[in-house]
Each structure stands twice: as C-alpha cells, then as structure tokens.
C-alpha cells in the first residue's frame, strides 16, 4: 500500500486540523485542542505558530476573513480534510487489528 509521506500525522498536526474543522484564530485553536483532548494536550504558543505556518505552506489550512484586525482566522481546506480522513482510517485500522489480535 503506497501512502502519503506525510502520514502518520503528528499529534500536534492532527489536533490542529481537527480543531480547524470550524474557523478559529490562534488562541482559540489552543483552547479547542485542550478541550478536544480532555486536557491531555496543552500546546504552547510557539509550537502552534510553527504548525500553522507549516500547514499554510502545505495548503491544508487557509485564512478566512475576520472582523479581528490583529488575529488571523484559519479553517481546514479540502486537502487538509483528505489528510485528516486518511490518518483517521489508518488509526481505525490499527485499532481494529489490535482488538482482534488481543481479543479486546
């Protein structure tokens, strides 16, 4: 099976994409990730900024217009959504196989 060289996604990237299924600015992304991971992932500002910069370059997220003049708002693109799905399927497969093998 040939796979994208970007897979598997890092936890940081996965959560940023998941958070951006709704438009959000930087700090809101941090809060959403904390909420989505039930407090398990507390991302720092520099790490998130690097991830946003990277995902913009890859075209997996894009800017949307906003009323806030200081804070840019981003949302996931079709390409980003496709990557999120691929990684989700990869993980689902791993979970299913593990369940079978270990009789869980």
């Amino acid at each position, binding site marked *: 099976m040939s796979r994208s060289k970007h897979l598997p996604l890092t936890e*940081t990237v996965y959560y940023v994409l998941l958070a951006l299924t709704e438009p959000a600015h930087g700090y809101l992304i941090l809060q959403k990730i904390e909420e989505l991971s039930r407090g398990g992932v507390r991302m720092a*500002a*520099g*790490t998130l*900024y*690097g991830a946003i910069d990277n995902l913009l370059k890859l075209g997996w997220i894009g800017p949307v217009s906003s009323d806030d003049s*200081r804070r840019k708002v981003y949302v996931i693109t079709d390409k980003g959504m496709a990557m999120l799905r691929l990684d989700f399927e990869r993980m689902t497969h791993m979970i299913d196989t593990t369940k079978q093998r270990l009789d869980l």
Partner: protein
Amino acid sequence: MRKYKFFVDLEKEERWLNEMARNGYVLERKSGMGYRFENSPAERAVIRIDYRMFRNGADFEDYRALFEDSGWTHIAGTRRSGAQYFKKSQAQEDEDIFSDVDSKAARYKRLSEMWGSLAASFIPLCAVLIMLGNIDPLALLTPADLYYTPELWEKSGAAFWRAFLFETPFALFRGAVFLALPLMVILSAFFSARAKRQYRNLRV
C-alpha cells in the same frame, strides 16, 4: 540596569536572561547588544526566545497576539530582527513557548538558514570586489603587498623609514578592509553550521 553582551547561542542567552530574572532583574528592552533590565524581584518571570522573521506587519501582529493571548508578553524583537523575546510573570521555571521537541529544534533550523543566506549573500559581493581588484585577501599572506608606495622596498635608510612608517597605518587599514568581508563569510557559515548542529542534536 544596562548590560552589553553578544550571544550566538539562543539557549545560552536564554539561560543568562533567566538567571538575571531569578536574581530579580527582568529584561525590559533590548537594542542591538544592549540589554536593559528592570529591578522587580517579586515577579518570578520566565524569559523565552523564539527565532522568526515575518513577511508583513499583519503576520507579525497575528504572531504577537497569539503569544499575548497565551500569557506571554512580547518584550523585544521587530518584524525582521529574527530573535523574539517573551516573558511570563509568576510562571513555573519550566514554562516554555514550545511544547514538543520538533518545534523547539525548528527554532535552530530557522537561525541556521538565516546565517546561511547571509554567508551566501556575502560570497558574490566578495567575488565581485576581488575581481574588480578592490580587495585582495591574498595580500594578507604577503603583507608587503599591502604597501602601495611605488618602489618602497627599493628605498633605504631614512627615506625608506619615512615612507614605510607613513604608509603603515594605511596598510593596516587596507588589510582590515581586505579581511573584513571574507571573515564575514567564514563567520556566517560557521554560525550557520553551529545552529544546524544544535537543530540535529535536539531532534534525536
């Protein structure tokens, strides 16, 4: 309080600034090599340095807003300065602006790329000046070539010494100029390689 220091290593600089903060001197402003501290012993501030340049003012504002929303005050750094200084008051000593190893390492990658492009931009400048005969770094190996007085080395006695001593300050200056640009290339390349090594070391 004011202090003057020059750092190439972001980690050493960060360590020094945090040591100063623990002793009650919190970085207030930085311009060039000058660091200005304010005396605020009860602040328990943590200082962190990011390295990043921005294409436009809006990107820089967005970046600063994210850090400020997360509780980090932007102390120093401009859109094109690269180093960005942040502080958080009443913070745990291990509070950081990075929460994973990759992003912490990527800071050195950006630093390395900056030194690399600086070195790369000096090389053509150097080459052109050497080709035009404006600078001649090889003259440093044979210092006599730094003296331009015609037939200086054929003169003798008082006439030689007068001409020699008269031109020596000029020759030294010439040598310094010839050395400056190639030295910039070498230093930039060296700092680039150093930052790259730090990047690699952090990644494993």
